[in-house]
């Protein structure tokens, strides 16, 4: 409270309890009108085909009450926290602990990731979940090249994921090609589609680019649904072969891996293999990205993100720079797609909706747009958070949407909001991303 009164510019904000009460009452009144029909009346198609309805005024009252109470709490919190732009000084020991954690978190996570199959060998659920998390980590790192580094907002990333998955599924089921032959092919095909999409949309900027990529993602999905003779339409492709360890199958047969090594066969072997496969693929993505950031092309991407006009003035070929970003991101998406297909053994267009794109994008944004560690942490948080809502499927996307809005309001720069420069004079200094002006890529 003292922080507010100390600043004359914020003195205009009233803070009395009458003000809080008035604000909460207004919120409750608005909520009452908003929810009156949507919550208060429940409609359903009746047995004769006509509509029937019943009322739920209890729920309505509870919801309005929640809004009233919530608005009081939020207002109190806001007054306690002070103005948004106020600097909050973090105590020295906390700062030291934070920087220690910052330095050791990534290696610790990596070691932990390698040990997951050892620790949780008998817990199939945890292994499956970690494979899922790693898939999203890889997708997040792939999209990070496009969104985080090059600053091109891509809302149709799932299209490349789908291209990769369907490339592998169709090549493997129709021509019997093995996973290791198809993996690069899936990547190349996805990159090809990335260039195909990237080429015409290069002139677009910002929001327009986002909408066009969204439309592209939907087109790919609709074509997959409707081109039934090739893709099986809504029924999808089933019977996709499992991956092999360079030709050695991981099954119960005589020439399987277990038989060759002389150990008892267990289906967990395949899960563990899949785990290390996706871990390796994700780390490859990470490694390539880190290396690329130090190459001229990676520097050009980041320069493009900050200011496209300046880039052009400095003689950077904007066209090829954007195209390579699109192609690289798409390629990793394609790899992840091929992995997804071989893990599931079955794919259908339902797995490649806009929601997936939004989820991956949310991971990148939550991770801080450009921070590799941030993306990994964000994927862990997001997918873990989704698992918490396993029992209430229908509330999952609702909570996801609310979280996305709150995240943007609370920390638009994501969890790890600073950017470590790849070029620096004398000493490396991380820049808070609040200071970085976003260009109009």
């Amino acid at each position: 409270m003292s922080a507010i009164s100390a600043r004359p510019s914020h003195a205009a904000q009233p803070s009395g309890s009458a003000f809080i009460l008035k604000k909460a009452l207004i919120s409750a009144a608005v909520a009452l009108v908003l929810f009156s029909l949507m919550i208060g009346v429940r409609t359903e198609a009746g047995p004769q085909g006509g509509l029937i309805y019943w009322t739920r005024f209890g729920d309505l009252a509870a919801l309005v009450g929640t809004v009233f109470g919530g608005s009081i709490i939020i207002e109190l919190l806001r007054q306690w926290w002070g103005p948004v732009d106020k600097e909050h000084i973090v105590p020295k020991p906390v700062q030291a602990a934070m920087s220690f954690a910052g330095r050791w978190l990534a290696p610790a996570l990596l070691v932990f990731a390698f040990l997951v199959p050892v620790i949780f060998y008998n817990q199939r659920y945890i292994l499956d979940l970690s494979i899922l998390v790693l898939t999203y980590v890889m997708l997040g790192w792939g999209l990070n090249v496009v969104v985080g580094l090059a600053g091109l907002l891509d809302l149709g990333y799932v299209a490349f994921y789908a291209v990769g998955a369907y490339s592998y599924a169709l090549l493997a089921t129709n021509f019997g090609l093995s996973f290791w032959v198809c993996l690069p092919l899936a990547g190349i095909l996805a990159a090809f589609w990335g260039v195909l999409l990237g080429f015409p949309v290069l002139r677009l900027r910002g929001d327009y680019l986002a909408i066009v990529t969204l439309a592209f993602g939907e087109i790919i999905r609709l074509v997959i649904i409707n081109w039934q003779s090739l893709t099986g339409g809504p029924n999808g492709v089933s019977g996709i072969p499992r991956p092999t360890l360079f030709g050695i199958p991981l099954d119960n047969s005589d020439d399987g891996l277990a038989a060759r090594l002389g150990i008892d066969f267990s289906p967990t072997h395949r899960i563990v293999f899949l785990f290390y496969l996706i871990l390796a693929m994700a780390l490859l993505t990470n490694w390539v990205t880190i290396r690329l950031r130090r190459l001229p092309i990676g520097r050009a991407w980041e320069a493009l993100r900050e200011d496209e006009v300046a880039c052009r003035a400095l003689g950077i070929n904007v066209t090829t720079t954007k195209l390579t970003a699109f192609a690289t991101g798409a390629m990793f998406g394609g790899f992840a797609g091929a992995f997804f297909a071989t893990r599931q053994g079955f794919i259908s267009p339902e797995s490649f909706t806009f929601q997936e794109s939004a989820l991956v994008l949310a991971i990148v944004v939550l991770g801080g747009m450009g921070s590799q560690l941030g993306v990994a942490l964000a994927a862990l948080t997001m997918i873990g958070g989704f698992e918490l809502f396993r029992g209430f499927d229908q509330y999952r996307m609702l909570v996801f949407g609310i979280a996305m809005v709150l995240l943007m309001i609370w920390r638009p720069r994501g969890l790890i909001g600073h950017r470590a420069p790849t070029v620096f004079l004398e000493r490396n200094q991380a820049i808070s991303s609040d200071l970085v002006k976003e260009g109009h890529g």
Partner: protein
Amino acid sequence: MDYFAQQLINGLVLGSIYGLIAIGYTMVYGIVGMINFAHGDIFMIGGFIAMISFLVLVSLGLTAIPLILLIVLLVSMVITALYGWTIERIAYRPLRHSFRLAPMLSAIGMSFVLTNFSQVSQGARVKPVPPIITGGYTLHEGPEGFAVQLSNIQIVVVLATIVLLAVFTWLVSRTRLGRDMRACEQDQTMASLLGVDVDRTISMTFVIGAALAAVAGMMYLLYYGLVDFFMGFVAGIKAFTAAVLGGIGSLPGAMLGGLAIGLIETFWSAYFSVEYKDVAAFSILIVVLIFMPTGLLGRPEVEKV
């Protein structure tokens, strides 16, 4: 020829609905410079509220159809407008000076919230409504027995669109609010220096856009006789395509683009394939943005360094 005429009528009606949604996109983009991704879902909410209020009114014993329609129209416009206002207040206003992608992402989140809110609160199944406005005219009886029909509901949709467009044009070009809106569109800082309440004007833009979307939602309900929680997504993208095609920021352009998209979609379904009608609409969006980024009636954007 008769078949063509029939498709023309159907396309114009569909296009009117798209046009009404597109106006919301174009207005918000003109003033705030962001794509209100949740606008398609506002349209869906409008349809739901119209459906629920219609159901309640009928069960209360009201029988006069014009009176019911009038009340439903008002109720859905008012409540949906409040949705628009609340969304702007909660999700967009705090981000107005944030970095470029923040409002867009917040809008995507809001779109998920609205879609799933109506799924959770009203169930996932399609809600059918019996035909409310029935009857029509046979314009021309062809020799092969194909008759060109013009139903009353089609007339209502087109008339409502024309009336709303007239009212709206008057609002923007003749009233104080319209002047404020145009001022904010050009330069928000300057407008606020000259005594325009920028916050209020932007709020009103969202309110008007949402009210028009509610009308579109109600027309959709009357015309197709059903609503479901997912209809906002595709309709939203198509209406956005319409806004871009017409030139984003231009009001007559939005209507023109809406009609164009409605006609293209109808003719594509009639003469080529129904399955790929959405693909056609999305492809148009891409093609237009590539070859004609300013649209039919838009002004070219000047880049300031």
